[in-house]
């Protein structure tokens, strides 16, 4: 099971989440297992469950108000009830003063308590984003990810089919390389995001030339840190002698491929020497944008066609008349 250690959280997000550690250094070795960030709320009133041990628990203004309403004994009992679980982390928002008894009891139980100056809603949003990123399943694929007109195209296909060369051509035309050869994918909500491997960065191998540095060659505008994968473009060798291999001829429906549990549209483009895959890539991207905007050329064409056929005109009547 994926987990995030509180020490790593403090190490990387201290500034971003404006965190302050209230308990001793030794309490930071717990781990968070769930992307859900729970407001303690009813747990303080006695409604608890095993979910307490998976998630970050938040004490905001509401919780603080409730605790202040209680007598000192009842307050201790409420906090004790929560800390009876192996809670991975408690966060107090809005920079509020921790309720008495919380810190000593938490230290005794080895549960870290952090404080943020953020308001509860904002903290939960940012924390969820971070946890989603850290806890998302990851997938490494052999392919090339390019941002073409703002659309993330993930090129797949066998080695040496020309994925890198295609990306290079696109970069030359002003599009952006995200990752070449090895693309790491993770999920954010229903989106699949791809990024480069830290080690390889924006380097690329061009057969016959060797390793090149795309950012050094084409500048900062030619690269991007990460991009949502919107269309998978599978490059396939054109098999002239294999007439049984079929390609999409109509394009009313997209084929799909599953990545990390998300269905991603997939097109298969047959390629052969001299074919301009770059222009086709730009059209794939633009056509995808059109579809997102509700315009499906193939479907509109089909409707138009059915309408015309119902008129039973002769084929000849459709030839455009250019005579004066």
């Amino acid at each position, binding site marked *: 099971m994926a987990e995030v250690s509180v020490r790593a959280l403090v190490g990387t997000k201290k500034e971003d989440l404006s965190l302050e550690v209230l308990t001793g250094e030794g309490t930071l070795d717990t781990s968070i297992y769930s992307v859900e960030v729970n407001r303690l709320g009813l747990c303080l009133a006695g409604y608890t469950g095993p979910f307490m041990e998976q998630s970050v628990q938040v004490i905001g203004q509401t919780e603080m108000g409730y605790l202040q309403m209680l007598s000192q004994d009842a307050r201790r009992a409420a906090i004790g009830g929560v800390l009876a679980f192996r809670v991975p982390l408690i966060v107090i928002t809005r920079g509020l003063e921790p309720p008495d008894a919380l810190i000593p009891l938490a230290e005794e139980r080895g549960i870290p308590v952090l404080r943020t100056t953020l308001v509860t809603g904002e903290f939960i949003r940012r924390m969820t984003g971070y946890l989603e990123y850290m806890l998302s399943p990851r997938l490494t694929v052999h392919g090339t990810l390019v941002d073409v007109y703002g659309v993330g195209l993930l090129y797949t296909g066998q080695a040496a089919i020309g994925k890198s060369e295609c990306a290079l051509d696109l970069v030359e035309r002003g599009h952006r390389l995200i990752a070449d050869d090895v693309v790491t994918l993770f999920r954010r909500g229903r989106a699949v995001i791809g990024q480069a491997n830290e080690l390889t960065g924006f380097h690329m191998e061009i057969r016959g030339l060797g390793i090149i540095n795309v950012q050094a060659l084409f500048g900062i505008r030619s690269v991007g840190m990460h991009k949502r994968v919107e269309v998978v473009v599978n490059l396939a060798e054109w098999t002239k002698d294999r*007439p*049984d291999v*079929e390609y999409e*001829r*109509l394009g*009313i429906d997209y084929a799909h491929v599953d990545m990390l549990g998300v269905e991603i549209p997939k097109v298969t483009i047959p390629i052969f020497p001299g074919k301009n895959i770059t222009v086709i890539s730009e059209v794939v991207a633009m056509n995808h944008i059109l579809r997102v905007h509700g315009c499906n050329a*193939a479907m509109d*064409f*089909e409707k138009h*066609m*059915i309408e*015309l*056929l*119902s008129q*039973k*005109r*002769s*084929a*000849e009547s*459709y030839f455009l008349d250019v005579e004066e």
Partner: protein
Amino acid sequence: MERTIEIKNSLGVHARPAAMFVQTAARFKAKIVVERDGIEVNGKSIMGVLMLAAERGARLRLRADGSDSSDALTALADLVEVRMFDES
């Protein structure tokens, strides 16, 4: 080799059946020509096949030229007249 076929599906040869037609034709090596009222088109070109504006009841003449002509014509006739383009 030639064969005449009749369009039987209710909507005629619109884009979906045309795509099925050219995909079937493309499985064969033979050159395939489709003709209607003197207009001839390549049987492996979707725009060509659509241009014939073949509604239900239209009769098309198929001409195949190549080693697998006979199989190609049988497959196309089956698609159009028996499977009726699967009424797509």
